[in-house]
């Protein structure tokens, strides 16, 4: 079982990211489970979403408190939410930030494995808006190959229709541009 907690702000598509991961792993013949933090959503407010993947049927239906990986979609979340809460000892934090891994590690006092990518810039250049949910999926897969990147293409196409290519470009660029500090 591999568990991911996603942090973002309402409207940035954290739930969509979790959903796309679930669809990709289900399409690979595995079991995927994605769900939002339940309740009313407010645009701009910090939100979390969850994703699990396993080779066996996923029976647990509780929130994820000890994730293997934490994905942060919005740079400002890093300073207002304790995103690494409960992160496993060998867990990975994948963050959207314009700083280098060393800089962000020092500023936040992080000891965990870290992957950083300037997803805002990529999203701006590829999509024209700083919606980073598809970009950060690239960062996530660079840090940990939970699914084959190709498995995400079909769900991305289905979900985004005529703007799918732009999202796929952002996703692929992030795989290249993510800096690992393990």
């Amino acid at each position, binding site marked *: 079982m591999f568990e991911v907690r996603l942090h973002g702000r309402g409207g940035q598509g954290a739930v969509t990211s979790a959903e796309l991961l679930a669809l990709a792993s289900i399409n690979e013949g595995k079991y995927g489970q994605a769900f939002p933090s339940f*309740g009313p959503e407010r645009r701009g407010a910090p939100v979390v979403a969850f994703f699990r993947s396993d080779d066996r049927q996923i029976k647990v239906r509780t929130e994820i408190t000890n994730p293997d990986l934490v994905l942060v979609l919005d740079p400002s979340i890093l300073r207002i939410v304790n995103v690494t809460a409960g992160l496993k000892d060998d867990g990975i934090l994948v963050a959207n930030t314009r700083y280098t891994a060393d800089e962000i590690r020092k500023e936040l006092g992080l000891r965990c494995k870290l992957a950083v990518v300037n997803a805002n810039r990529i999203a701006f250049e590829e999509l024209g808006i700083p919606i980073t949910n598809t970009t950060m999926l690239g960062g996530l897969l660079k840090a940990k190959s939970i699914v084959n990147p190709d498995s995400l293409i079909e769900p991305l196409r289905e979900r985004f229709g005529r703007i799918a290519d732009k999202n796929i470009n952002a996703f692929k660029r992030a795989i290249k541009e993510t800096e690992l500090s393990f």
Partner: protein
Amino acid sequence: MGKRIGLEVSLSAAEAVKMANVDCIAAYPITPQTHIVEHLSELVNNGDLDAEFIPVESEHSAMSVCTGVAAVGARTFTCTSSQGLALMNEIVHIAASMRLPIVMILANRSMSAPISIWNDHTDVMSIRDCGWIQVFANNGQEVFDHVLFGYRVGESAQVLLPVMIHMDGFILTHVIEPVEFWEEEQVKEYLPDFKPIYALHPDRPVTMGGLGGPGIFSEVKVSQDEALIQSKGEILSAWKELGDVVGRHYHPIETYKIEDAETIFITQGSFGETVSLVVDELRDEGESVGLIMNRLWRPFPFEEFREATKGAKNLVVIDRAISFGGQGGPLAIELRSALYKEKNQPTFANFICGLASRDVTIADFKNIYRRAMEKVKENPREEDFEYYGVRGK
């Protein structure tokens, strides 16, 4: 084998309603059921489902429309939650008394106040005695299968009763997970067309839901109760056939590792699968535990429970609803009555938890188990249940 599709469970439930080829849907959106209705309205609008979609102004009207439409012999569907169910309450009872095989999904949610859109089973319990066949689903696949099961059972000439499918709000409605869809041929094989014995028609006038004074009311209601009790035979054969057609096997109670278990957890709804993992972990630690997940809430499976708990020393019953001023949670009350005359009665520990979707983790269930083992020694009174995970308790 049907195709395995990753989809939000609400949407796959709506797809099952489409596969059942319903004639009419009347519903009013309410969280957390909304996605089911929205998707159905899309399917009808896009021409993927040839049905009337009647967007009513309230849940009371939704169930009224379903009742009228079912009375003329059409296959009907609706779904609701919590306050919506409360508003339709009057007609929910009437649909059962008039023996109309409507299928409704209840996305289980707490009753206000305070306002809660989150999940528990207090809405279920508010219509416990409405006379519908009621089943609980543990996951998305079970919701899908039971939509088709609902029409198969409810429309059977031996039954003619409405069927309610309980699915935990948010925990199931809003999760994306794989569901195996049925093939069209499988649906055809399993679910015959609805052929009502009596239907409203100008050429063949009948009266439905007329006045029933002291001279006839009791006879009508007792026949209704008999119909619900006797529906079990048809329920069992419909599950058997479902297993033959799609290879998934359902039972009034689903048991897990109870054969040699000293202590048995008893759950209803989506807690079940999580607790099955708790059973695995506790067994690894050397504890003798098992699990019964209740599926058939009405008619209640008394015999199956007596048989399954025969060798058990202790029962740990998990309720997700309060019966204010009562002897614990509604499931515990039912079970205690079921076992009252048994010779070797197991001890009984009842915990109420998970109200308004409060997370109950594997560690929490282990704490509940430990607390239950302490309680056994205290020899508690029947009404001595506990709330788990509540501040100030």
